[in-house]
C-alpha cells in the first residue's frame, strides 16, 4: 500500500499506533514527488535531506504517538509564508535567494503540532492571479489535464494535494486564491473568517482581505488543520481573541434543520452548463439530507469585482513599496537612491504585479482617492450588509466556487479583466470578511475536470460551514476521485 494516498486522519492513526514511522511517511511522499512533480511543477523548493531529518527527529522523540494533532505529517507551504531557514520568494524574482529569518505564526503552530515542513509550493507572483501563470518560476499544471491551469494564486498547493504530492498544504486567500484552485484541482480548500488565523509571517498582499487557510483531501482533514491554525496571536493586530472550538466535533451533526441560502445573483447566464448542473445536483442532495433550501439575494454582487480590484490593488501598492532593493532581494544599482528604487522594481516585478501597483497607486493618488478608493470602500459596506441580511434568513450559503472548470494555459493571459472575472463567486467573501470552503461536487464530461461547490458561513461560523461540507461529502464519492497521473 502506498502511504502517499492516505488522508491526514488516516495517516495520523497509523503514526499514532506506530504502524508507520515519520521517516517512511516522508520518504513515500518524496518518492511520489519524484515521479510526478516533473510534470506538475507544484513545488518550487524541496530539501529531501532536511525533510527526512525533521522526520527522524519526530521518530526519535516519539511525539507522533502522544496525540499531537499532526505528529509526523509532512505539510507543504505556499511560497508566501515564512518558514525559518527555508527560501521565501513569493513566486517573484525580486526575492530570488531570500531566506526566511523567522517562522510565521501558522508555521510555529504546525511545528508545535508535530508537522514536518516539507517544501515550498508555486504561486502567482505575490499571490496576484487566478492561474499560477504569473509565477516568475514557471506555471504549475493541473493534475487532471496538464494543458490546463491549476487555478490560483495558490495553484501549487492545490495541485500538490490533489496529486497526492502532499497530505495537506497551506495557501492564502485574498479574493479566492484558496477556494478557486481547490475547485479546479478537485480538493478541499478553506478560507477562514478574517481575524481567525494570524497572518504574522505572511508576506502581505492586501491586508484588509488576506487570510491563510488549508488545502486538504477531505473535510475531516480540513477541520483538523483548522484546529491547528486558528487562534489568537498578539503579533497580528487583526487577530480576534475568540475561543477556538474543536472543529472536528461538529462534523457529524448533519444538515437536518439547517437553512441553506441560494443567492439568485450567483446562478447567472453565461455560467458553464456542466458547472451549473453539478451545483444544482449538490443542492438537491443537501435537500435530501434534510436541509431547508431558501432563496436569498445578495444585490450588490455585480459590483464586487470592481470594488475588489480597487481595494486590493491600493493596499498592494502600499504593501509592495517595501521591495526597493534595500533590505532584501535583488538590487539594480542607479545614479541615486530614487533611480535605484525605480530600476530595482522595474526589473524585479512581473507584468501582473506592475499592472496592479500602477492601478493601486492611481486609485490612491491625489485627486482620485475619493473617486476610486473611498467609493470602493463604501460599496464594500453595501456588500458586507448584503451578507448580514442574508444570514438572517439562512445558516449557510451554497454557490458554485468558479463559473467554469480549469481553463487552458494561456487562454486568459492577454486579457486581465477576463481573468479577474473568473473570481466573481469568491471575491465578495473576502470583502465581507466571512468564511467559506470549496469542495468537489462533480466533473465535466470531456475533458474530465473537477467542479467545486462553495459553502459560505457567518463570521466565525466555521463549524457550520464544515458541518454542511462534511454532510455533503460523506453522501457522495467525489472526494475519493484521483487524477490518473
Amino acid at each position, binding site marked *: 500500500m502506498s502511504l502517499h494516498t492516505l488522508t491526514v486522519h488516516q495517516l495520523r492513526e497509523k503514526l499514532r499506533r506506530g504502524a508507520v514511522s515519520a521517516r517512511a511517511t516522508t520518504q513515500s511522499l518524496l518518492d511520489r514527488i519524484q515521479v510526478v512533480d516533473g510534470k506538475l511543477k507544484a513545488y518550487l523548493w524541496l530539501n529531501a535531506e532536511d525533510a527526512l531529518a525533521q522526520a527522524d527527529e519526530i521518530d526519535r522523540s516519539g511525539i507522533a504517538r502522544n496525540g499531537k494533532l499532526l505528529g509526523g505529517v509532512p505539510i507543504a507551504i505556499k511560497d508566501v509564508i515564512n518558514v525559518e531557514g527555508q527560501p521565501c520568494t513569493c513566486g517573484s524574482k525580486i526575492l530570488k535567494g531570500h531566506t526566511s529569518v523567522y517562522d510565521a505564526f501558522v508555521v510555529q503552530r504546525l511545528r508545535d503540532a508535530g508537522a514536518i515542513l516539507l517544501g515550498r509550493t508555486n504561486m502567482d507572483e505575490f499571490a496576484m492571479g487566478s492561474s499560477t501563470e504569473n509565477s516568475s518560476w514557471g506555471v504549475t499544471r493541473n493534475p487532471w489535464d496538464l494543458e490546463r491551469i491549476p487555478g490560483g494564486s495558490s495553484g501549487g498547493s492545490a495541485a500538490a494535494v490533489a496529486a497526492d504530492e502532499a497530505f495537506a498544504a497551506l495557501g492564502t486567500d485574498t479574493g479566492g486564491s484558496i477556494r478557486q484552485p481547490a475547485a479546479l484541482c478537485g480538493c478541499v480548500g478553506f478560507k477562514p473568517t478574517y481575524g481567525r488565523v494570524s497572518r504574522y509571517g505572511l508576506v502581505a498582499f492586501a491586508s484588509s482581505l488576506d487570510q491563510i487557510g488549508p488545502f486538504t483531501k477531505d473535510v475531516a482533514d480540513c477541520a483538523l488543520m483548522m484546529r491547528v491554525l486558528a487562534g489568537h496571536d498578539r503579533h497580528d493586530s487583526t487577530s480576534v481573541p475568540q475561543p477556538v472550538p474543536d472543529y472536528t466535533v461538529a462534523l457529524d451533526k448533519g444538515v437536518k434543520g439547517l437553512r441553506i441560502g441560494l443567492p439568485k445573483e450567483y446562478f447567472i447566464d453565461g455560467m458553464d452548463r456542466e458547472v451549473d448542473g453539478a451545483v444544482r445536483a449538490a443542492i438537491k442532495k443537501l435537500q435530501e439530507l434534510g436541509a431547508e433550501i431558501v432563496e436569498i439575494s445578495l444585490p450588490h454582487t455585480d*459590483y464586487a*469585482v470592481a470594488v475588489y480590484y480597487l481595494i486590493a490593488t491600493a493596499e498592494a501598492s502600499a504593501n509592495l513599496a517595501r521591495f526597493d532593493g534595500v533590505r*532584501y532581494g535583488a538590487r539594480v544599482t542607479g545614479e541615486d537612491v530614487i533611480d535605484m528604487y525605480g530600476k530595482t522594481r*522595474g526589473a524585479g516585478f512581473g507584468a501582473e504585479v506592475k499592472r496592479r501597483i500602477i492601478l493601486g497607486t492611481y486609485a490612491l493618488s491625489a485627486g482620485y482617492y475619493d473617486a476610486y478608493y473611498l467609493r470602493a470602500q*463604501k460599496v464594500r459596506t453595501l456588500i458586507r450588509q448584503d451578507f448580514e441580511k442574508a444570514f438572517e434568513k439562512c445558516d449557510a450559503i451554497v454557490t458554485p466556487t468558479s463559473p467554469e472548470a480549469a481553463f487552458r494555459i494561456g487562454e486568459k493571459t492577454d486579457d486581465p479583466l477576463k481573468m479577474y472575472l473568473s473570481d466573481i463567486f469568491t471575491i465578495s467573501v473576502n470583502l465581507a470578511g466571512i468564511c467559506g470552503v470549496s469542495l468537489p461536487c462533480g466533473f465535466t464530461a470531456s475533458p474530465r475536470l473537477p467542479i467545486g461547490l462553495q459553502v459560505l458561513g457567518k463570521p466565525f461560523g466555521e463549524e457550520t460551514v464544515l458541518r454542511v461540507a462534511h454532510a455533503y461529502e460523506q453522501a457522495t464519492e467525489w472526494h475519493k476521485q484521483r487524477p490518473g497521473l
Partner: protein
Amino acid sequence: MAEDTSVFDVSYVAHLARMYLCDAEKQKISAQLKDILAYVAKLNELDVSKVEPTAHATPLSNILRKDEVRPSIDRDKVLNNAPEQARGLFIVPKIVE
C-alpha cells in the same frame, strides 16, 4: 468618479510608485487600465452618499500593546538577506549631499 480615463498618465503614476516601465510596458498597461477603469466606473451607478466606508472586516479597533523590551530577530540574520551591508548596517546610495 473620474469619467475621463484618457487623462491617465502612466509615466506620472509609475514615478509615484518608484517603478520604471519601458515604453512597451507603458503602452500596454495604459490600454489595459483604460478597460479596467471603464469597468470599475460601474460603481458610479450606486448612491453611496449616506454609506460609511469599510476599511476592514474585524470588530477590533486600536489594538495596543505594552511598550516593553522583548527579544527581536537576530540582526546578522536579517542583514544576510540584504543586497549590500557592512558593520551592522544596510548600505544605500548617498542620500544627502
